[in-house]
């Protein structure tokens, strides 16, 4: 039996029919993790706790407890998300031996739904990066081609789902960190509306952008996970109130007016990706959707807005990592406490974290805050207004998730601006707080996955997932690179 051959609903049926136990499923997952260890998708494998938990859940299964859809499923959690009693490092040296002291709300909700956490997924340090290479625990590798990056920052969460070692995972998305690795690894990645899913327990990167969302092998699976983690949380001040997402509203037969932003087909888009996207657009039109070309002129400066506001928020959020309160201590000689902070942070934080902290410190400093930070927040308003206006005319937008196919390991890791350019189609969504979904639609000539991005107005997850299901149906069967 392969985990990758089964949807969540199929696994649920097998569990209910007692054709497979939670322990068997967990063992299968742990074996797959071991046999794909060269992908480096996990920072911590939670073997003993996972097996103990599986035995507990099997008892419940025998007692005939009501089995909800996620019950008994082995899952991975990005290592920026807190897990009680399990090491939570954010892929940073400075937290390399930090054990989580409470569960993030999303983790608590998944546990209540009966999942088994088999491990913590590798990622770029503090979720900063677009390739999975900026991890203190080494890079993650793309299962479709191990010479290439899996995307980032939620690299391991995407890879472990693509490699079939877990059923689904949680990642976080600040500027594309779910959608871009989903596209590069040929899986579904869902970035929810800002505020729909609680961030309590997410180690914050840029708080006005960060969201938590799922990776799964199908749109239906991603929807099931979203329905388990969405909802109000009094521990997150930005959490929205009310019942804002309902699975039963998803209807793959529904026809939409779909906008194609011209800015998503600018120069720099790989021709193989453009061709695949245009083919799918034709299929959607033939299937009865109304397709119209639209323009969002402010998208031209979305990347600039993002790379001003994000470092500013990063420099503030990462100030709490003083090397004193969490994880390991700096062991070298110091003169006094200020000297300690300087040395502990200098040793414990990686290259990209340092770049963003220094840049953010500059952007927020007296004399420059108006020129950079305030100006970017004003431009953010323009981007939000452009989306608001376009969503008066169309239900959803579609385009590519990434401008290029997965690039080679090492190709961009020394050139941050080149790395940032790979976020060009994803950052605007976070700037406006909108939901978006990446769905694999085709393989390139070299057998690398291509993702299509669907963007909706705030809280339109049901529509976005309906169209995602329709795109999957038009694409047809999709297989995963198991044991390649």
């Amino acid at each position, binding site marked *: 039996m392969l985990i990758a051959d089964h949807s969540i609903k199929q696994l649920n049926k097998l569990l209910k029919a007692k054709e497979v136990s939670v322990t068997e499923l967990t063992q299968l997952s742990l074996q797959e993790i071991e046999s794909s260890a060269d992908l480096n998708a996990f920072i911590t494998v939670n073997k003993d706790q996972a097996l103990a938990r599986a035995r507990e859940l099997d008892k419940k299964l025998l007692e005939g407890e009501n089995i909800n859809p996620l019950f008994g499923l082995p899952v991975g959690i990005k290592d920026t998300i807190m897990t009680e009693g399990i090491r939570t490092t954010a892929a940073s040296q400075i937290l390399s031996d930090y054990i989580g*002291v409470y569960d993030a709300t999303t983790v608590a909700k998944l546990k209540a739904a009966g999942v088994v956490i088999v491990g913590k997924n590798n990622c770029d340090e503090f979720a900063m990066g677009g390739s999975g290479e900026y991890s203190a625990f080494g890079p993650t590798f793309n299962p479709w081609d191990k010479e290439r990056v899996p995307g980032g920052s939620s690299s391991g969460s995407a890879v472990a789902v693509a490699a079939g070692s877990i059923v689904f995972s949680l990642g976080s998305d600040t500027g594309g960190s779910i959608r871009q690795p989903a596209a590069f690894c040929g899986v579904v990645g869902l970035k929810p*509306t*800002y*505020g729909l899913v609680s961030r309590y327990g997410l180690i914050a990167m840029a708080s*006005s952008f960060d969201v938590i969302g799922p990776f799964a092998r199908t749109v239906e699976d991603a929807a099931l996970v979203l329905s388990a983690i969405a909802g109000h949380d009094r521990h997150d001040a*930005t959490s*929205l*109130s009310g019942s804002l997402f309902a699975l039963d509203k998803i209807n793959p037969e529904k026809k939409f007016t779909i906008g194609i932003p011209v800015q998503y087909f600018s120069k720099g888009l790989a021709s193989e990706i453009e061709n695949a996207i245009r083919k799918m657009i034709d299929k959607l039109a033939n299937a009865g959707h109304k397709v119209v070309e639209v323009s969002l002129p402010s998208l*031209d*400066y979305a990347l*600039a807005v993002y*790379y*001003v506001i994000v*470092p500013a928020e990063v*420099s503030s959020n990462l*100030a709490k990592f*003083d090397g*004193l*309160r*969490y*994880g*390991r*201590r700096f062991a070298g000689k*110091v*003169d*006094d*406490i*200020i000297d300690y902070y*300087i*040395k502990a*942070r*200098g*040793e414990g*934080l990686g*290259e990209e974290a*340092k*770049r963003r*902290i*220094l*840049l953010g*410190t*500059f952007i927020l*400093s007296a004399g420059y805050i108006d*020129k*950079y930070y*305030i*100006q*970017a927040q*004003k*431009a*953010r*308003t*323009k981007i*939000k207004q452009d989306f608001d206006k376009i969503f008066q005319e169309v239900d959803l937008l579609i385009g590519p998730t990434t401008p290029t196919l997965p690039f080679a390991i090492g190709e961009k890791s020394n050139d*941050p*601006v080149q790395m*940032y350019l790979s976020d060009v189609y994803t950052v605007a969504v976070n700037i*406006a*707080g909108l939901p978006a979904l990446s769905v694999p639609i085709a393989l390139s000539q070299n057998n690398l996955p291509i993702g299509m991005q669907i963007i909706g107005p*705030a809280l339109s997850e049901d529509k976005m997932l309906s169209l995602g299901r329709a795109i999957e149906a038009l694409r047809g069967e999709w297989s995963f690179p198991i044991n390649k």
Partner: protein
Amino acid sequence: MSLDLDQIKHLSKLARLEISGDEIEKLQTDINAVLELVAKLQSLDLSEVEPTFYLDYQQGLLRADEPQLFDSGAIIESMPDRKDNLLRTPKVFKG
């Protein structure tokens, strides 16, 4: 706009971040490249536009003013170096 080495050094002090000798020039190059990437914002006339600092699709959401106590035990337990319930730090004053 580009930053010189002294400015980078000053920022690293403000940010409490030790930068080693071989890191600093690379950081300077990278930071200046990012400043160039974001320079296009300067040419936009946004004098009439209000900034968006926060995204909130539901405004003025308030919760009941009831204290909820966090179990501090686990947090105290997780401190890497402590004496009783207090975090032990390096000495704060020189000398």
